[in-house]
């Protein structure tokens, strides 16, 4: 125990020291580097496993999850001095798909060297992007369609897809559930931006490529600021009341767990 404490103190000292030496060198930070944003889907304290585990939801409901997909967009990074780096808009749309390992890591290149302490990103596609027409969508349209993130009856993106099976005290046979959330034409904008503080700074340098490890706790989707019982509505697609509530729950499920430098 004593040695652990001692080690902690030394670690702390080193980190403080390294911080302060950074401060001294702040003016000398130049060039650009790569910052990776990792989306690590979880369920409460556990890693989220598709088509394997059964998780507890609201009341007696149990869910088995087959699909978790969402659109992450418009990423911005804020450094210690409050300076904001905005990823170029036309390169800032991504699909995070739990069944596609590569999609869980978003590499941002050409990030100016600096010590970043906050990250902001959008969940979904903003109206501005829609209204740019074909110019604005670029190849993202095809990517979204391949990932099943486009509606076929509406020329729009699904921002969030959550599907699987569930049972409850009253629903004893496995029953499909599906939440698809997106904007409702021009009638209802469900795009939301999320800003997260980082527990330690992400120090981008020409030779340091930090990873911002974000944990997305999917249990929040059904059991967030609004509680959803699947027995009440196992399928929610376009609903003027519930879709914005899903958007709020989803935007509340993220936290930066740690940063690797």
């Amino acid at each position: 125990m004593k040695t652990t404490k001692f080690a902690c103190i030394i670690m702390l000292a080193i980190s403080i020291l390294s911080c302060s030496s950074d401060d001294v060198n702040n003016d000398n930070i130049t060039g650009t580097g790569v910052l990776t944003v990792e989306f690590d889907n979880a369920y409460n304290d556990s890693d989220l496993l598709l088509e394997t585990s059964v998780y507890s939801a609201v009341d007696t409901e149990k869910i088995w999850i087959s699909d978790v997909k969402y659109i992450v967009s418009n990423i911005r990074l804020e450094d210690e001095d409050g300076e904001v780096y905005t990823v170029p808009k036309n390169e800032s749309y991504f699909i995070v798909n739990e069944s596609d390992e590569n999609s869980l890591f978003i590499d941002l290149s050409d990030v100016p060297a600096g010590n970043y302490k906050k990250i902001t990103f959008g969940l979904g596609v903003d109206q501005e992007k829609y209204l740019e027409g074909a110019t604005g969508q670029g190849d993202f349209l095809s990517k979204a369609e391949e990932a099943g993130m486009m509606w076929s009856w509406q020329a729009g993106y699904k921002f969030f897809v959550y599907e699987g099976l569930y049972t409850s005290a009253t629903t004893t046979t496995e029953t499909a559930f599906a939440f698809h959330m997106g904007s409702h034409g021009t009638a209802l904008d469900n795009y939301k931006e999320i800003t997260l503080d980082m527990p330690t700074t992400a120090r981008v340098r020409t030779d340091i490529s930090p990873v911002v490890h974000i944990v997305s706790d999917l249990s929040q989707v059904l059991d967030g600021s609004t509680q959803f019982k699947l027995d009440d509505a196992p399928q929610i697609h376009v609903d003027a009341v519930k879709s914005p509530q899903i958007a709020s729950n989803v935007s509340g499920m993220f936290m930066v767990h740690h940063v690797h430098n």
Partner: protein
Amino acid sequence: MKKIGLIITLFGVLWSCSEDTYVPVEPQDLVFETPANFPGLKYDLSANPLTDMGFELGKKLFYEGKLSSSGIISCGFCHEQSSGFTHHGHTISHGENGLEGFRNTQPIQNLAYFDEFTWDGAAIHLDLQPIIPITAEVEMNETMPSVLEKLRNSSEYPELFNRAFGTPEINSERLLKALSQFMVMMVSSNSKYDKVVRQEENTEFTALEAEGYRVFNNKCASCHTGDLFSDQSYRNNGIPYNRKHPEEEGRKRVSGYVSDFYKFKVPSLRNIEKTFPYMHDGRFGSLQAVLDFYSDGMVENGGEVDASLIKEDGTLGIDLSSQDKEAIIAFLLTLTDYEFLEDERFSEY
């Protein structure tokens, strides 16, 4: 010896062909003029400048079966020029695998002056509208990546994209822009009505048409507004609920608002003579039937009937005498634009 001559000639032809492929062809800008009686353009031409090559590519794509899963159903399959780019005589249209949707094909005309599309506003940019019919199972039943792959593998499209956009690359942005260029150019503005209001060629309404125009302005123009004949709003016109299509919710399908149940976009009335049958489900076969509905057929349909269609005594409908109807129909027929319906620039052949 003859054979060698032939082979040499053939070589020459092949040679020049392959050379041709790499000679950049400079697309010529197309001039887009807004008719004097039209409102301002909604489509942003600066993001997609119109050129002859872009337009020609868009036209070819519009009539291209490869946009559908079977290779047969093109946009033009349901949008026939002689019917104002609607599906002649069809209440609703049939798509791939004989599947049917639940809505009547809408005309394609003057779309550059609109900012939302389809009966319920499911597309909020003209460029994005074609995604719906291409990917809908009951229409063309395809996917954008698959369509792009088919076009890339074709012998002619890489060159056509090269001409239109400067490189042979085929992507969704270019595909949609080309289709938009074709649709933007599809302007119907030379009906008898237009010539009367623009005072061209000494055109005048007949007495009956003039009376119809007067009644129309009093009783119809609050929704069928201006020279597009639509205020582009979504309204519930008290059309009886159609039990054949229980999936139909009107604008509610897009907005999610219960209050939008059975609301539909106010359609333009241009070329209305040719775009029958009428209403979102094509239930009415004639203009007379439509006007009879407005005078006597409106009912509560599960949604909120538009306030403008509720009379002072609380009953639904528009007061129209049989003379009013005859006159309105005479006026509506002046909206037929034969120049547009026969314009070879938009024709398949």
